[in-house]
């Protein structure tokens, strides 16, 4: 869930807190994955006056409200559902009344929105924590929500098993616990972070997240370790380069060496390949550490359509004549309501096109460009050479550690990333920090499809090239 819609939803369902319940219908996007389903809150269909019975403490929905939502579902492609609250400090465990309501609505909405899931969520504030439970009626069966992710809002997911779970303090993170509190440590343990790119920046972020006690880390990278990477990649050794070990595998092994209890999913692949999106879309947040424009665009798309909060990083070392003149680091925040990568001009069509070509096509284009130049014409329509971006391990480590730090701030709710696009230069006085203001373009697709998930597939900013190898789980 993203902040604008979730904030609106909280104001509604907690309107009669702490003792009485309240509710609202909502629209959801969804994506069927290999292991289940990811559901995203796309819009709130708030109740109007008289839509709910105000004279009773529990939720009673009057028929005109239900019918209005059902008829609206015939005009849009999204799923419908309801969110209601339970009184303060009452677990969001579905009651028998909730069961009756869901059994009725699950079938009722199939008549108006056939082939779409029906979503039922319960929210409650329990011991100072936001706690949610949920179930989804899909193809005649009920699926239980196993994890909620809300933009910059720590959340507990209620399941029947979670009542039995005992969260123990961990000695290994004692200093972090002392600084952030035990509650924050438990939040990290329940969290999942996807790191796209396991090179210099990614490996530094992964190491910091693992040491902080993040419960699940998803590592995605298409490449293997090369000798020239050894200066930057945390956990890499010369034998990894000699044996061409995938970077994601090196990261996984390094994390398990730090914390064997961390759940690590290592994928050899890239965004936006289907198997990668399936897993990353279910994470609490994603860190983009590839410094590739197509990856940046895919991450931005993921933030908009699947509501995965993301930070993306790029670093570059500038210099000439043996003198370093710039050590620039940029961290871009992609929240669902932020400007997307297109609005911010973070990508250029030519570079994107060249990054996404097959190696054969790149070779053909280079030859065509050379031929054009030999004829006295510009080779640019065919191929534009871009300079190799240089970087060094300490710079990527700083960037990765900063990304991990802001991720920890979001996951624990202890601090926020106070910027939209942070740029700094290690060689500039006071680091030359700037935070350029980015304004969304009103006509950009990102303004129209927030939280629409697969229901806005035709509006995806990027698709995976067919020549990419299949994703491999390591």
């Amino acid at each position, binding site marked *: 869930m993203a902040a604008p819609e979730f904030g609106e939803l909280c104001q509604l369902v907690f309107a009669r807190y702490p003792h009485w319940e309240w509710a609202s219908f909502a629209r959801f996007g969804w994506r069927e994955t290999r292991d289940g389903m990811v559901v995203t809150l796309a819009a709130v269909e708030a109740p109007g006056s008289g839509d709910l019975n105000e004279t009773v403490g529990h939720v009673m929905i009057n028929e005109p409200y239900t019918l209005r939502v059902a008829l609206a579902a015939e005009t849009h492609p999204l799923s419908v559902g309801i969110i209601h609250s339970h009184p303060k400090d009452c677990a969001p465990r579905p009651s028998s009344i909730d069961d009756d309501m869901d059994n009725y609505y699950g079938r009722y909405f199939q008549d108006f929105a056939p082939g779409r899931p029906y979503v039922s969520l319960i929210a409650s504030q329990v011991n100072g924590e936001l706690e949610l439970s949920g179930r989804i009626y899909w193809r005649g069966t009920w699926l239980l929500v196993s994890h909620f992710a809300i933009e910059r809002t720590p959340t507990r997911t209620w399941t029947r098993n979670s009542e039995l779970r005992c969260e123990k303090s961990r000695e290994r993170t004692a200093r972090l616990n002392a600084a952030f509190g035990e509650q924050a440590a438990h939040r990290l343990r329940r969290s999942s972070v996807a790191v796209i790119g396991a090179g210099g920046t990614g490996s530094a972020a992964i190491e910091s997240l693992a040491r902080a006690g993040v419960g699940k880390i998803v590592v995605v990278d298409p490449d293997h370790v090369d000798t020239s990477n050894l200066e930057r990649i945390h956990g890499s050794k010369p034998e990894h380069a000699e044996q061409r070990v995938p970077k994601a595998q090196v990261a996984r092994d390094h994390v398990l060496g730090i914390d064997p209890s961390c759940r690590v999913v290592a994928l050899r692949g890239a965004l936006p390949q289907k198997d990668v999106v399936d897993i990353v879309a279910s994470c609490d947040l994603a860190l983009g550490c590839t410094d590739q424009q197509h990856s940046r665009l895919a991450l931005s798309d993921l933030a908009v359509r699947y509501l995965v909060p993301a930070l993306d990083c790029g670093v570059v070392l500038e210099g000439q004549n043996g003198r370093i003149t710039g050590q620039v680091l940029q961290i871009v925040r992609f929240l669902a309501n932020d400007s997307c990568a297109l609005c911010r001009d973070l990508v250029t069509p030519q570079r994107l096109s060249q990054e996404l070509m097959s190696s054969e096509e790149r070779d053909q284009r280079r030859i065509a460009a050379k031929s054009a130049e030999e004829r006295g014409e510009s080779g640019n329509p065919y191929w534009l050479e871009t300079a190799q971006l240089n970087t060094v391990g300490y710079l990527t480590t700083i960037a990765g550690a900063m990304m991990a730090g802001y991720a920890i701030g979001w996951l624990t709710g202890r601090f926020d990333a106070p910027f939209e696009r942070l740029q700094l230069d290690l060689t500039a006085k006071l680091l030359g920090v700037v935070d350029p203001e980015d304004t969304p373009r009103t006509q950009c697709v990102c303004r129209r499809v927030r939280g629409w998930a697969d229901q806005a597939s035709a509006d995806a900013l990027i*698709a995976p090239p067919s020549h990419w190898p299949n994703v491999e789980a390591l």
Partner: protein
Amino acid sequence: MSSERVSRELAIIREGLLTADLVNEGGRQFVIYRAVPTNGVRFGLPGSTDVIVPVPPGYPASWIDLAGLPVGSPFLPRVKGGQNNQGIVFADGHQWQLASYHPHNGGGGPPWDQNRHGFHTYLDHLIAWLDRIA
């Protein structure tokens, strides 16, 4: 490739009474525009021709580029970039020769903007391309 997006754009073309199809050939995708009007009649050439355009990898992140005509087409020597062979492809039962035509990359069209451009707007460039035959 976003097949949903390409399908949506081809549907827009069909609303304008022209036809374009998405074809897969050997792992590559192409859009074939059917019977695109030309300015050939005044040269004694056909008044229309089919045109092939590759769907770029990662589309719509990558821009649409190039255009091809059937191998041996009388338009190839006359259209812009037609004599600069950018490769032969086989699709839809025919061989096609790709021409050096780059409207979104310095070739006279606007810079690529995936929020505005697509295979439906590329048709305008193709019609202009086949109108300006020499």
